[in-house]
C-alpha cells in the first residue's frame, strides 16, 4: 500500500490508522487498550502493526487496566500509548493523574465522541477538552493536541511522543470521530527517526531531582541499575513519600504544573491565514477547523475581512500568542462541538478587549461552512450598521 515519492511515503489512511503509523514511527512499542467506538481501529491497527516491529499490543480487561499497563510499560523502558473515547477516557482519569504525579511519559489518544455518559458513540463531539485538562483529581498539567485531518493525526501523534518524552508528562491527542473515520492522503516522511528517550546520569542519581527549568533530565527505566522508587504519593527528590513535609509537597505540586505552564510559549502550535487585515477571526481547533477555513475563504470572496486560526496545541492554552495574532481584530468567533468551552478561554485571554462569540454545535454533526460563514456575515453587518 502506498508509494514512495521524494523521500516520503504517501498512503491513504483513516485518521485512526494514521495515529498508529505515527506512533510506530515515533518508536512506540507498547499499546494497551479496550474496544470502544469510535477508537477501536486504533487498537485493531496496533494489534496488527506492533508485533511486526517487535512491539506489544495488549487488550486489557478494562480501560483502567489499559492506562495502568501503559504506565508500567513506560517505566519498563518502552514508549507507550493507550487510546479510547468518552466513557473509556473517564475511566482512565485516575491513571492520567498518576502518570502526571510520577512523571511517566505516555500518550493518550482520545477519539472524541458526543457525551455525556454513553452519549453518541458513533457521532463526533469535542466535549472532552476540559476533561483533558482537569479530568483527574488534584493539581497537575498535561499537554493536548488537536488534529483536524488524517495528516495532522499523523503529525501531531508523532509530536505527542516527542513532547511526552521531553516534558515527562501524559500527552493527549484529542482526535475526534470525524478525523478518526475519515480516509485521506497522508504523507509519511521516509527519514522519520524514533523519538529519543534520554537516560539520566547514574552518578548522584535522584529520580525526582529537577533541572532549573523544572524538567527532569531524562527517563530512567526499571532494571537499568537505578533502583527506582516511583510513588504516586507526593514525594521528595529521592522518591520517598513526603506527605508529612508540607514544603516538599507544595514544591512538587507547583513544579508539576509549572513545568508545563512555564513553557507555554514553546508549546504554541497555531496555523493561520488571512490574518493581515482581518477584522473578524475564526479561532478553530479539531474538525471544525476545516469548515472554518472554507467559511473564511468564502467570506473573503464577498469582501469581508475575515481571518482564520487553527490551534493545534490546545493545552497549555496559547493565550499570549492568541492575543498577539488577533490584536488587529474586532471580533473572534469560536466554533466548537460542545456547549461552549474554549470560547471562555478565548474570552479570558483577550480580557474583554474585543467581541468573542461562541458558535456551539451539539448533536453529533459538524458545522457546515455556511453556518460559520453566516456568523461571520452577521458580525460584519453588526459592525457596519
Amino acid at each position, binding site marked *: 500500500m502506498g508509494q514512495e515519492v521524494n523521500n516520503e511515503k504517501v498512503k491513504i489512511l483513516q485518521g485512526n490508522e494514521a495515529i498508529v503509523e505515527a506512533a510506530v514511527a515515533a518508536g512506540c512499542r507498547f499499546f494497551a487498550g479496550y474496544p470502544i467506538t469510535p477508537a477501536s481501529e486504533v487498537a485493531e491497527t496496533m494489534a496488527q502493526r506492533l508485533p511486526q516491529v517487535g512491539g506489544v499490543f495488549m487488550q486489557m480487561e478494562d480501560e483502567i*487496566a489499559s492506562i495502568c499497563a501503559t504506565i508500567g510499560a513506560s517505566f519498563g523502558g518502552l514508549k507507550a500509548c493507550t487510546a479510547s473515547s468518552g466513557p473509556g477516557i473517564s475511566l482512565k482519569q485516575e491513571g492520567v493523574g498518576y502518570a502526571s504525579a510520577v512523571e511517566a511519559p505516555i500518550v493518550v489518544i482520545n477519539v472524541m465522541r458526543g457525551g455525556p455518559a454513553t452519549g453518541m458513540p458513533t457521532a463526533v463531539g469535542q466535549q472532552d477538552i476540559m476533561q483533558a485538562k482537569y479530568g483527574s483529581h488534584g493539581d497537575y498539567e498535561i499537554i493536548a493536541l488537536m488534529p483536524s485531518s488524517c495528516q495532522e493525526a499523523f503529525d501531531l501523534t508523532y509530536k505527542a511522543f516527542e513532547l511526552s518524552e521531553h516534558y515527562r508528562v501524559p500527552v493527549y491527542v484529542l482526535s475526534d470521530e470525524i478525523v478518526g473515520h475519515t480516509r485521506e492522503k497522508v504523507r509519511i516522511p521516509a527519514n522519520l527517526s524514533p523519538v529519543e528517550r534520554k537516560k539520566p546520569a547514574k552518578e548522584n542519581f535522584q529520580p525526582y531531582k529537577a533541572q532549573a527549568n523544572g524538567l527532569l533530565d531524562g527517563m530512567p527505566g526499571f532494571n537499568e541499575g537505578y533502583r527506582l522508587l516511583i510513588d504516586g504519593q507526593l514525594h521528595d527528590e529521592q522518591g520517598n513519600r513526603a506527605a508529612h513535609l508540607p514544603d516538599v509537597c507544595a514544591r512538587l505540586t507547583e513544579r508539576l504544573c509549572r513545568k508545563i505552564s512555564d513553557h507555554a510559549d514553546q508549546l504554541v502550535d497555531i496555523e493561520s491565514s488571512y490574518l493581515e487585515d482581518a477584522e473578524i477571526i475564526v479561532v478553530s481547533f479539531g474538525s471544525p477547523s476545516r469548515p472554518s477555513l472554507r467559511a473564511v475563504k468564502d467570506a473573503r470572496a464577498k469582501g469581508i475581512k475575515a481571518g482564520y486560526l487553527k490551534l493545534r496545541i490546545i493545552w497549555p492554552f496559547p493565550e499570549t500568542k492568541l492575543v498577539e495574532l488577533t490584536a488587529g481584530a474586532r471580533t473572534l468567533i469560536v466554533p466548537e462541538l460542545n456547549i461552549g468551552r474554549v470560547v471562555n478561554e478565548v474570552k479570558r485571554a483577550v480580557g474583554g478587549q474585543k467581541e468573542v462569540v461562541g458558535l456551539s454545535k451539539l448533536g453529533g454533526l459538524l458545522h457546515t461552512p455556511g453556518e460559520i460563514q453566516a456568523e461571520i456575515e452577521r458580525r460584519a453587518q453588526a459592525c457596519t450598521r
Partner: protein
Amino acid sequence: MHPLGEKYLRKNALPLLWCPGCGNGTILNATVRAIENLGIRDRLALVGGIGCSGWIPVYIDADTLHVLHGRAIPFATGLKMSDPNRKVIVFSGDGDCLGIGGNHFIHGARRNIDITVIMVHNQIYGMTGGQVAPTTPTASKTKTSPYGNPEMPFNGCELARASGATYVARWTTAHPRQLSKAIAEAIDHQGFSFVEVLTQCPTQAGRVIHGTADPAKLLDMIKANTISANAAKDKSAEELAGKFLIGTLHHDTQRPEFAGYYYEKIHKAAAAN
C-alpha cells in the same frame, strides 16, 4: 542491622510505617530471603498496591512502583510485557486485590502471565481505620459493619485457581520459613502465581474483629484456624468448616505462560516483516 537487611532494605525509606506487632515485617523478611536465595535482585520489578501491605516493596532496595489502589496487577503487566525477563512481584492487600482490584486479579490469573501476587490477608481495611473487607468473616463487626457483616468472604486461593492461576499457595505469618519457601517457588514458577498470607493486624482486625490487640494471641488464632492441605485430605467437611487450608494448593507447569507465548508470536511477526 541483620546482613540481609543491610543488603536489601532501602535505608532512606525507613523507618517502617507499620504498627507494632504487624505481620508485614514478617512478609518483608520472607520475601527478602526468597529473593536472596533465588539471586534475582537485578531482574526484580516490584509493585505495591494501596494499603499497609502495599508498602512492603517500598522498603526493598530494587526497582519499585507504588501505584493506585487495586491497580497493581495491570501496572505489573506493563512491566512484565515490556521486558519478559523481569521477575515481577506484586504486593496487594485483600481489599486491594479482591475488592477494588478484583477484576484485574481474575484476568491476570486467566492470562497466566508470569507475575507473582503476594496477597496479604488481614481480614480488614487496616490503613483506613478498620472497615469491612471482601475477606471479613460473615457476622463480624467492623467500623462499616456495625451490626455484623452480612456478606460472605472471598476465598482468594479458590478464586485464583478457578481464574487460571498456575501456582497457588497459602501460608501465614506464623509459618515464616514455609512462607519464604513458597514465595521463592512462586517467583520461580513460570506463570501467574498467587501466595496468600494470613496475617495478624493487631490495631484494626485484632481490636475490631477478634477482641484482642495482642499479636501473639492473634498468631495463635491464625494457627488454630488453619490446617495443612495434606492433613485436610482425610477430614470431613464438618471438621474443615471455617478452616483455611495451608500449603501449596495448586501447581500446574503445563499451561503456557502468557508473555513467553505472546513474545514467540511477536518474534515471528517481526521476522516476517
